């Protein structure tokens, strides 16, 4: 029988555009120390460490090797993952499988990125195929502009809907002490008047580039019950990939097959038939305001074409039927190697009742997703009971 797996502690750095006060070692150490304190676990109780990071963004091959003192890997098993935006959830998934398999009991998962050390948009351009795509890639923005314009062509969403999502994120982020962008007074018209980066994406529609790290302590059921009054149980984990080349998937944002497939598989694994009703909160990897709208329908929160209505009716706001990204999400904080794991950490905080000022009341079931590559999805369900 596989071991059940629970999250018993999390830690995040203060995320910012440039953490010039710390190097990579110190940045990672900040999150790890906080996670160990939160979990009330000593480093010698950790059996193995799983690390997620996108080294091309720092221009550093094996930065975790250099930073090993900062995360406690000395003479411990460790493995490093690199799957783009999804890497944080990929790393949690690996921790989950290793514990479920009984190979390790307690695992420390870490995600980090110090984007200010390198040049992220240059590195993102090399995601594209060198022959077919690289010459027309322009970092992340061009890619998401293509996605958003396809989505608009599908009908049902406007730039005002997108701006509302951007405002929701920044207002939520203002109540999260760790969030990078905190804009409690942002208005819809501010977003719609912000600089046009690549139609239809405006500056305030996009996520920022952040320096930051996150750490999560996961453990097997026999320890979780002893160590934590209210652990966040990982009920199910899944991954789906699609689209190696940009032209492979028509309507790729409007119908993101990997996200549709992964979420349906996940809901089936835990018996969810109506995600909007049965989920209490969702922390999703929304790279741009437009993407969040598309994800509402991809994740089954609404029918296709009704995403705009969801934000108009306030369903996904704090206090709504299904709050999405109470932490402020990726639109507020985006240290890429950490970003997807922050979704899991935030979902865990909600389930554990530790989210402080951005806590959603009575969370029993939470969804966390990662988004990466051109259209990849990791997804998991966390819950207060197993």
């Amino acid at each position, binding site marked *: 029988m596989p071991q059940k797996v629970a999250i018993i502690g999390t830690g995040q750095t203060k995320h910012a555009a440039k953490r010039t006060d710390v190097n990579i070692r110190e940045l990672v150490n900040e999150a790890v120390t906080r996670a160990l304190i939160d979990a009330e676990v000593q480093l010698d109780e950790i059996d193995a460490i799983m690390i997620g990071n996108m080294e091309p963004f720092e221009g550093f091959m094996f930065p975790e090797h250099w930073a090993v003192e900062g995360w406690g890997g000395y003479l*411990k098993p460790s493995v490093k993952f*690199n799957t783009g935006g999804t890497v944080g959830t990929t790393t949690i998934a690996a921790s989950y499988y290793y514990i479920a398999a009984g190979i390790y009991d307690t695992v420390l998962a870490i995600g980090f990125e110090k984007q200010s050390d390198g040049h992220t948009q240059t590195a993102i351009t090399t995601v594209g195929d060198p022959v077919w795509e690289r010459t027309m890639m322009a970092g992340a923005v061009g890619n998401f502009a293509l996605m958003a314009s396809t989505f608009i062509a599908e009908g049902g969403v406007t730039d005002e809907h997108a701006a509302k999502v951007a405002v929701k994120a920044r207002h939520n982020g203002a109540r999260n002490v760790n969030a990078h962008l905190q804009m409690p007074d942002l208005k819809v018209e501010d977003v719609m008047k912000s600089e046009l980066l690549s139609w239809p994406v405006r500056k305030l529609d996009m996520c920022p580039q952040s320096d930051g790290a996150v750490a999560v302590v996961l453990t097997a059921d026999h320890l979780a019950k002893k160590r934590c009054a209210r652990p966040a149980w990982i009920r199910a984990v899944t991954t*789906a990939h*699609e689209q190696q080349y940009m032209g492979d998937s028509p309507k790729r944002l409007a119908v993101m097959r990997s996200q549709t497939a992964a979420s349906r598989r996940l809901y089936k694994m835990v018996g969810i038939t109506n995600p909007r009703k049965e989920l209490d909160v969702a922390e999703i990897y929304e790279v741009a305001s437009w993407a969040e709208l598309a994800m509402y329908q991809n994740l089954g929160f609404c029918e296709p074409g009704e995403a705009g209505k969801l934000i108009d009716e306030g369903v996904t706001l704090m206090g709504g039927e299904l709050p999405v990204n109470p932490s402020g999400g990726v639109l507020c904080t985006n240290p890429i190697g950490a970003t997807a794991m922050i979704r899991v950490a935030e979902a865990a905080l909600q389930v554990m009742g530790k989210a402080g000022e951005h806590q959603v009341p009575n969370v029993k079931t939470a969804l966390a997703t990662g988004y990466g590559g051109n259209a990849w999805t990791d997804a998991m369900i966390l819950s207060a009971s197993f």
Partner: protein
Amino acid sequence: MTSGVAIVGVAQTCYEAAKDHLAYNELVYEVVAKLLRETGVKMADIHSQITASQDMFDGKTISSMSVNEVVGGYLKSEAKVAADGLQAALYGAARILSGSFEYTLITAHAKESESRRPAVTVSMFDPFTQRPLGLHDAISSGLQAERYLHVSGVTEENMAELSRRRHLDAKKNPLAQRAGDFTTKQILESPQMAGPLREMMVSPSSDGACAVLLASAERASAFGKRAVWITGTGNCTDAYWTERDLAEARALELAAAKAYKAAGIRNPAKELDVAEISARCAFEEPMYADALQLFDGDPRAWIRQSAKGEGIAVNPSGGAITGNPTSVAGLTRLAEAYLQVSGQAGEHQVAGARTALAHAADGICGQGHTVVVLRGNSGN
């Protein structure tokens, strides 16, 4: 602990200095197609894939995107380790043991020919104090070789003897890159790389890919002698290269101890029939063999013995020194160990091999080590 996972097939490309005619996806397609053909397993039955590649070598962020299609990752659970492929195999085994998957396909690829190794490996070094010195991995290996030779008494001639033997063994491995009946004089007189290391004592730049199919106990039963069991695994991370004694491999000792314990091996030198060790440089082999407890006492005596082909068979494939790329080298060791204990190694078969070890090293001067112990279904 890991007794419930078997390797049921492996495939490798031949290793070459430059596979100019193949893109990354074509390189991996070659091994995946071969593996499916030889095992008879259908892609539709494989739902889990772990790949290994290094973005900085591929010159591509998220380098697994090149191969996602050909490993069958569409709408499935692919993940990538940014480490040696042997780490991918460990994760793949964990996925099966978790009860979530019946098969996991492991692949590793690299085309070192697409970049200049010093220009890539300089990025492994401390950006503040070390990169300005112009360091790259040949230099750090040269420094490590000096330290190890000083501490162990191993000589340049000893390194040449071992290198000669491995290149000679590689002649029997049709996939090997740099094989031949070289003299120790030729090796000692080959161009200096760094410190005591000569060109013929260091792995040449290499292109290649390797694939391994892991299966649950239930699925493996259909493969008979072609199923080989993973009986022990271990992994350990050491301190950064400038913060430890480079003549020691403490992390490898710990990784091996864990793998041996799980496999029930008390005397590795006696109980193992074959060891495939990731040694890119000649001095690494005695250093790692020592940490793996494959000999006791003077490494010079062991080198002389091994160079004559006596004692435990180490790197009968020729080993990484004859040319295996970064990220791939350790998975190649696993594939070769599999071929030995399943009796499929052809001309370089070690007679009667039943128990074998595969090892991988990661990072500067072997900062990370991974060990896997395999046992065949019956003697050959």
